[in-house]
């Protein structure tokens, strides 16, 4: 039995409404769990309606869904909260890859398969869009994943699993290219696909974030993608063109993300999120399916908004994040000069400073995630509260490696979300704060952003911890942050540096407070 087309479309409408409700309920932590469940229900309805819409050959569908569910659940349950940016990046990439494959399959089906029919102009353009955006998303996301997991574009020695993934995926891409040409036969387009596969495989082996001619190569691959896209619209029966297009777009995806790292990561993760949605929407145009278009545009919009928020929080344009570079300029003061008056103290000295503090603000950064210090930080906050202090957390929008990263870590450690304050909320009250504790953050608390218009981070909104009565900075050393510039906060008269690993520092501090 198959469902009538109008029934299927009604089911898709229900699914789309549920997705919108999902996102709407995401506006508050109280309703968000319900929202997510409703979204999952919508997805189940869309899938059920699809399966009922035509007579099915079940074998491969069951195998595919079972494998996907297995890997999906395993990954989702196993990932630690600190590694959430990598995980989201990876899932993003899978969505992009699915779009490439579906558009490719639709192309094959239209010209060689069951429903042979010349594709409409819309469908042809959409196929090109799916292939390009999907491939950029997939390879770009893989690079983002590899950089977050610290095995791509690095010089240090890799752990065994990192080597397996890095060289394994590189090898698989090259072998895939060779296999494709062997099966499809050598032609101008299959060779382009092969060369692209080799280029991608080779790029993955680079140990530097930048190389000469990189920008020219970006421009060239973008231009070739457009050219191949136009050719494919004119000659859609030429399948090899599609794979050549996907290959060249893949090189572009790798290049676009390759030079981006560190504090710029949240922007890229948000942007790739947006791409994965647009790829899905494009696939919707290929097969004329409204639920794909609606869901894809919702996700596209979400990614664009987040990208925008992240860029604003760094006072940089998207173009500057993607193509520019951040670093010390000739005007940047010498670190030794800036750090002449640095004072450092032990756990006991910090404990004394906190003794009698009535209002404490903790400012977490990526360093807290790296040292997995969120639970220790929660213990510190609880201890200070039990001694009569008010403790709040000030979260900079780009703290961490993805939007909202710090909030998730603190939620994991059972810190109530009402204690998490946004930058604009806490800054006006900073002068009433007795002690501000900065843990693992640097550029987002650098007062230079406010005071020196020539600085690379000039105009970036920061958390004004320097205005608190006392500042304690937990940090391993005086090494610079992502922007590569010294931070005068560390040498300010009201600042005490507390040099240690984040987690150990907080544990020692808790012990010192309990003893004192």
């Amino acid at each position, binding site marked *: 039995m198959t469902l009538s087309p109008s029934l299927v479309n009604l089911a898709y409408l229900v699914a789309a409404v549920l997705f919108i409700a999902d996102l709407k309920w995401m506006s508050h932590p109280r309703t968000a769990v319900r929202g997510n469940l409703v979204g999952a229900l919508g997805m189940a309805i869309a*899938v059920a309606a699809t399966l009922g819409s*035509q007579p099915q050959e079940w074998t491969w569908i069951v195998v595919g869904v079972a494998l996907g569910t297995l890997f999906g659940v395993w990954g989702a349950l196993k*990932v630690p909260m600190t590694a959430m940016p990598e*995980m989201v990046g990876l899932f993003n990439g899978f969505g992009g*890859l699915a779009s490439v*494959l579906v558009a490719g399959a639709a192309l094959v089906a239209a010209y060689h398969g069951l429903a042979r029919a010349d594709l409409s102009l819309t469908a042809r353009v959409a196929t090109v869009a799916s292939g390009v955006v999907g491939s950029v998303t997939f390879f770009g996301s893989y690079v983002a994943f590899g950089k977050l997991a610290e095995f791509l574009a690095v010089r240090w020695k890799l752990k065994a699993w990192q080597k397996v993934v890095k060289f394994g995926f590189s090898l698989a891409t090259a072998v895939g290219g060779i296999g494709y040409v062997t099966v499809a036969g050598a032609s101008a387009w299959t060779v382009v696909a092969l060369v692209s596969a080799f280029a991608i495989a080779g790029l993955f082996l680079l140990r530097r974030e930048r190389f000469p001619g990189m920008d020219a190569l970006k421009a060239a691959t973008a231009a070739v993608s457009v050219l191949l896209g136009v050719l494919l619209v004119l000659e859609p029966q030429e399948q090899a063109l599609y794979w050549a297009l996907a290959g060249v777009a893949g090189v572009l995806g790798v290049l676009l993300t390759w030079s981006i790292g560190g504090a710029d990561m949240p922007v890229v993760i948000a942007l790739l999120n947006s791409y994965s949605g647009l790829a899905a929407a494009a696939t919707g*145009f290929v097969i004329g399916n*409204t639920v794909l278009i609606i869901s894809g545009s919702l*996700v596209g919009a*979400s990614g664009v908004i987040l990208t925008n928020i992240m860029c604003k929080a760094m006072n940089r344009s998207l173009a500057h994040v993607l193509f520019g570079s951040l670093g010390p300029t000739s005007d940047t003061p010498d670190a030794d000069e800036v750090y002449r008056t640095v004072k450092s103290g032990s756990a006991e000295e910090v404990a004394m400073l906190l003794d009698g503090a009535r209002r404490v603000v903790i400012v977490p950064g990526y360093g807290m995630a790296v040292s997995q210090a969120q639970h220790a930080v929660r213990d510190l906050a609880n201890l200070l509260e039990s001694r009569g202090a008010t403790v709040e957390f000030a979260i900079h929008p780009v703290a961490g490696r993805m939007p909202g990263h710090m909030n998730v870590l603190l939620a994991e450690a059972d810190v109530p979300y009402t204690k998490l304050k946004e930058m604009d909320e806490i800054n006006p009250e900073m002068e009433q704060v007795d002690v501000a504790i900065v843990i693992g953050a640097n550029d987002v608390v650098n007062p230079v952003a406010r005071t020196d218009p020539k600085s690379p981070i000039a105009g970036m909104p920061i958390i004004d911890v320097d205005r608190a009565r006392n500042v304690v900075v937990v940090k391993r050393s005086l090494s610079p942050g992502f922007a590569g510039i010294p931070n005068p906060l560390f040498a300010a008269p009201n600042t005490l540096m507390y040099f240690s690993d984040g987690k150990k520092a907080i544990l020692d501090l808790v012990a010192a407070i309990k003893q004192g």
Partner: protein
Amino acid sequence: MDLALLLTVFVLAIFVGFEVITKVPPTLHTPLMSGSNAISGITVVGALLLAGAMGEDPLARTLATVAVVFATINVVGGYVVTHRMLRMFKRK
């Protein structure tokens, strides 16, 4: 389907997306990303249509089946990991 119709849906959905998502607070931006990620796995619908069609070209079917696997990882993994995160926020 008619291009104008598909475009209408596309444009309106983008407006709805902007309206709804601007209201999500920064605290929930990570779950928003992983949740919207799961939604973008809707490509699974397109993959299923091509993977399951009776008598479809073997190459098209193979491509679509691989797409089913990846889109399903995206969907299922996305919803489960979002649920895991949101439960932590709700406890209080």
